[in-house]
Every structure is written in structure tokens, then in C-alpha cells.
């Protein structure tokens, strides 16, 4: 099973420039989460903080019992072995061809023979659709190919946590669709914890279990996909519908009167549902589209059941629209338990609604039994 990442009160500044403060969220083990946010809000900085490349001033990031904000260098290198990271531009080593790039982690960290290395590398290259490009140098291929090669390199050591920095940027829509399917399939196969930073709303709507939005130096919202998709929060709505009307301006915030006028005009046109299609797959107002399933023939995502139990436990926290959307995604047996009042609010979980010590897939006993 993937590893949980618990972030508490994280604050990062460069000199006097604060990037974000007090970010608290938990990436539940094995689930796929997407982090959204306007350009320059520090999403890449957040990813780099998670792997310990940048040191936040305050807060903690706990991964398998280690706070990587404060642990020693040796321990950090250990924890990093859990990670696979796809950087924004692939970050391939420019002096090596694609084969050597992807084989690099294997040659450094394992004692596998060259034929075994070759088998694994070719398998991963096949997985991301790069067969036949082994001998190319990173400078000779397109940005989309570099990205896929970076993904293959991130996967060779079978990581437990995979971070993607804008996997879709620079890819055509068909490739993005394949990549999203690949992400879901991978998750079903290796049950790792995924965090994807993206600007693609279509991806954010259909791929993840959890969604978050970073805005104005804070984590504006983080929770189950349905929570953000049905949110009435103006910033979240504006972002997920990819429209100009709303608090987010081109470069800075707008004044309140202007925002109100814009929103009135939007309502007069019939609201988001009748606003047509926005850029980057933004469409559909507050509809909750079905989540992407693994390809036929693959095992079911093990995180799926865990997540259903987790969100069933937090149903009572949500407003009716969100709760309805979540109920629609739950299987009948869980719904029956919810309605029978089996799930008590998880007291003291700090909004986590998930107990790290609890065995996988095991439902807690009835309320009076605990």
C-alpha cells in the first residue's frame, strides 16, 4: 500500500517573500489527489518541499513516521527512496540517452544485472509509449516525449508516493487522455499515493479522489473530489469553470464591486451550466462527472474501497449538495451502514477522517462497540 503524507501548518518563504503559509492536508495512502492553483502560487514549491528539496520554515511533513522538515540528511535520503517525482520539464539528464536516463536509478540503487535492467527499462518505456526511442538524447525529442520519459524514470524503482508536476502540459489532448488512463491504471497496479499538480480542469474533474486549490498564499480548500466540484466558494467555482468572472484577476485581485457585477452578468446568462465550454476542459458547472476507472482486465483500485469508507465517515460534515454527490458514489452496503448511523464523527482526527493505525479495508465496529 502507498504511504500517507501528512502536512501540518506548513509555511514557506523565500527571503521576505511568503509563498504560502499554514498549509494543512493529508494525502491518504494509495489515493490520487490533484492540486490546483493559479500560476505562481507555489505548487511546484510545495512539491519540492514534500521531497525535502526546499525547507519550509514552519510546520511538518510526516511520511512513514519521519518529519522530513526536521530529519537529518541521511534519513532524508532514505525517505526519498519512497518517492518518484516527475518534474515540470521532465528533468532528464541531458548528457545521457533515454535508455540510460531511465536505467539510472536502477544502476545506482540496485544490483540488478544489465539484462534485468534492460527488461525493466524497456517495459517502462513501453508503458509510456516510448518504444524505439531508447537511443535519443533528451535534447532531440519533443517536450511531451521528455515528460513521458521522466515519468518512466520516476516509475522504475516502484515508488510508494508519486508526484507529478503538470504531467499534461505540452501534451496533446489525446496523449493527456492516455496519460490520465495510465495514471489510474498505475494506481490500480501499484497502489501508490499520487499527487498531481495540473492546470487541466478535465483531469482534475475525472481523475482524482481528492482535490485541493492553492490560492492567495493559502490552501483554499482540500477534500474529496465531490467537495470541490460542488463547492459554492467563488474562487473554487471560478477556477473549476475556467472563467474570467470571479475574484481571481489576470495579475492581482479585483475589487468587490467589479466581481459582483461580473457574477450578476453570469447569473443573467444562466450560470455556469449554461456558460458554454471553458479552456482546459472546464465545462459543466457543478456537475460531478464519473471518475475514471482502471482499464478492463486490471484489478480494482484498492484505494477505492478505502476511500469510500473514509468519505462515508465524513458525510455528516458536508453540506447537502456535496453529501448527495458523495452518496451517489458509495456502494449500497456502505450507504446502509451510513444510514444506520454506524459512522461516528472521527473525533480528534483534525479533519483527516482517516485513522493511520487502522488496518486496510476493515470497517470500524458500530459506534457503541468502540
Amino acid at each position: 500500500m502507498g504511504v500517507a503524507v501528512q502536512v501540518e501548518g506548513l509555511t514557506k518563504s523565500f527571503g521576505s517573500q511568503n509563498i504560502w503559509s499554514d498549509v494543512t492536508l493529508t494525502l491518504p495512502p494509495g489515493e490520487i489527489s490533484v492540486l490546483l492553483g493559479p500560476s505562481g502560487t507555489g505548487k511546484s514549491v510545495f512539491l519540492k518541499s514534500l521531497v525535502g528539496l526546499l525547507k519550509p520554515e514552519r510546520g511538518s511533513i510526516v511520511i512513514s513516521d519521519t518529519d522530513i522538515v526536521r530529519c537529518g540528511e541521511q534519513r532524508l535520503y532514505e525517505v526519498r527512496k519512497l518517492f518518484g517525482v516527475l518534474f515540470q520539464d521532465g528533468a532528464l539528464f541531458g548528457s545521457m540517452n533515454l535508455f540510460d536516463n531511465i536505467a539510472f536509478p536502477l544502476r545506482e540503487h540496485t544490483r540488478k544485472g544489465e539484462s534485468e535492467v534492460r527488461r525493466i527499462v524497456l517495459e517502462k518505456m513501453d508503458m509510456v509509449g516510448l518504444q524505439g526511442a531508447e537511443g535519443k538524447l533528451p535534447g532531440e525529442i519533443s517536450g511531451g516525449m521528455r515528460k513521458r520519459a521522466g515519468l518512466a524514470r520516476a516509475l522504475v524503482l516502484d515508488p510508494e508516493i508519486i508526484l507529478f508536476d503538470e504531467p499534461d502540459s505540452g501534451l496533446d489532448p489525446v496523449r493527456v487522455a492516455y496519460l490520465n488512463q495510465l495514471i489510474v491504471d498505475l494506481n490500480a497496479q501499484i497502489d501508490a499515493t499520487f499527487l498531481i499538480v495540473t492546470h487541466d480542469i478535465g483531469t482534475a474533474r475525472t481523475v482524482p479522489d481528492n482535490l485541493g486549490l492553492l490560492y492567495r498564499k493559502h490552501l483554499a480548500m482540500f477534500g474529496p473530489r465531490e467537495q470541490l466540484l460542488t463547492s459554492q466558494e467563488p474562487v473554487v467555482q471560478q477556477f473549476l469553470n475556467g472563467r474570467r468572472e470571479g475574484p481571481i484577476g489576470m495579475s492581482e485581485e479585483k475589487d468587490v464591486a467589479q466581481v459582483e457585477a461580473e457574477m450578476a452578468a453570469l447569473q443573467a446568462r444562466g450560470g455556469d451550466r449554461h456558460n458554454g465550454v471553458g479552456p482546459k476542459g472546464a465545462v459543466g458547472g457543478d456537475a460531478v462527472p464519473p471518475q475514471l476507472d482502471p482499464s478492463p482486465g486490471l484489478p480494482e483500485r484498492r484505494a477505492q474501497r478505502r476511500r469510500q469508507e473514509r468519505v462515508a465517515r465524513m458525510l455528516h460534515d458536508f453540506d447537502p449538495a456535496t453529501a448527495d454527490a458523495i452518496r451517489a458514489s458509495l456502494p449500497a452496503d456502505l450507504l446502509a451502514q451510513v444510514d444506520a448511523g454506524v459512522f461516528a464523527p472521527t473525533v480528534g482526527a483534525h479533519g483527516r477522517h482517516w485513522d493511520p493505525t487502522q488496518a486496510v479495508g476493515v470497517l470500524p465496529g458500530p459506534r457503541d462497540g468502540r
Partner: protein
Amino acid sequence: MTGPEAPGLLDGPLSPARPLRASGTLFAFALDTFRALPRRPFQLREFVQQTWFVASVTILPTALVAIPFGAVIALQLGSLTRQLGAQSFTGSASVLAVLREASPIVTALLIAGAGGSAICADLGARKIRDEIDAMEVLGINPIQRLVVPRVLAAMLVATLLNGLVSVVGVAGGYFFNVVLQGGTPGAYLASFGALAQVEDFWSGEIKALVFGLIAGIVASYKGLRAGGGPKGVGDAVNQSVVITFLLLFAVNFVMTAIYFQLVPPKGQ
């Protein structure tokens, strides 16, 4: 103390603490490099490649600079000794000038200007493409992997270049003195042996070794801290060359002073 404070003397771009902090991090970086030095496995391949690379960008410019440098010294000394009536010492004087000062300085200029800038640009380009971050995430320490072989390569090439400059400079001096200024070969060689000693050569080599170390460390330090896109790499290269020059000339002065304390001049 509570609450935000007003910016004090120690904040902002004009703070006197800034240069101190900058030199502190440079020294910390140098220490990290020394600590990574004995760590196995030694990156032999990278070391050989880098040695070849630094040598290939420095050898030709060094030879081209060394010839006129030797010639200028020979011309200056030739006319000076003629005015003083000490023509027979032209040979030894020019050899001493070349061995003790000119050749480490020429080496320093080229190691910093050609070798260091190439190292810094290479590492800087990798840094802004996130290659260095990717390497760290893959569990590889970039100091051990990239910096140590580069610093050692710069040191090795610097000592070799110093030998090259010495030979080319002395030969150039001989040519100008004997062929163009009409000096006698015998007097040139005899005075050479009278004043020059083998310590002069060693001092030049030790200087070159230290210069290579400084150039390698400063170039790697600046390269690994490049930021802000391609322009950031350009700035880093520029700063690395300037900082290395400043350090090299200061260190050269100190080392020369120490040399004269330690090694008694011949013929006293």
C-alpha cells in the same frame, strides 16, 4: 519578541551581514566538498571526462596567452638589463618572472576564465532544468557525484597547465632574448642556472593546485545555485569568474609572501 519587526540594519540588500553570509555559505560548500571527497564510490569516469573537458577548453588558449606573455617579459627585462648593464642576467630574471609569477597567474586566468566558466555554465544549465533536483530525489548526492570530480579535475589540469605555461614562457623568453634581441645563448642559460632553483617551479605548481581548487569550488558553488532561467546561468557564470579572479589574486599575494619567508633566495 513578538509580532513582525521593522526591517533592521541586518535586512535588505545593503545589509553588512550579506557578504559575510555569502562567504559563510561558500566555505560551508567547500567543507561539504572536502567531506564528500573520501566517500565511495569515487566517480572515476566523471573525473576523467571532466579532466579531458577542462583541458580541452584551456590548453589552446593557455598556449596562445603564454607565448606573448613570455615575450613581453623578455622584452621588458631585455631593455631593463641593458640599461643597468646587467645583460648577462636577462635569462635568469625572465625565467624567475615566468616561473614564479607569470605562469601561475596565466594559469589562474585561464582556469577561472575558461575552465571555471565552462563548469559553472554546465552545472547551472543542469540546475535550471531541475536535473540536480532530480538527482537528489533519486538519492544521489550532487556534491559527491558532480562537484568532487570537477574540483579534482580543475586542480589536476591547473598543475599541468602551469607546467605548460612555464615551458612555453621560458622558451618564448629564450627566443626573444637570443634571436630577436641578440643576447648570447650561453649567458642566458648560465644565468638561468645561477639564480633559478627547483623550488621556484614547485611553488608555481602548488599555487596552480590551489588556484584550481578555488576555481573549481567557486564555479560549482555558483553553478549549483543558479536560478531564474537562462539569465540566471549567465549571471552565475559572470559572478563565478569575477569572484574567482578576486580570490585568486588575493591568495596569490599571500602565497608569494609565504614563499619568500620559507625559501631563501639562491646566492645569498
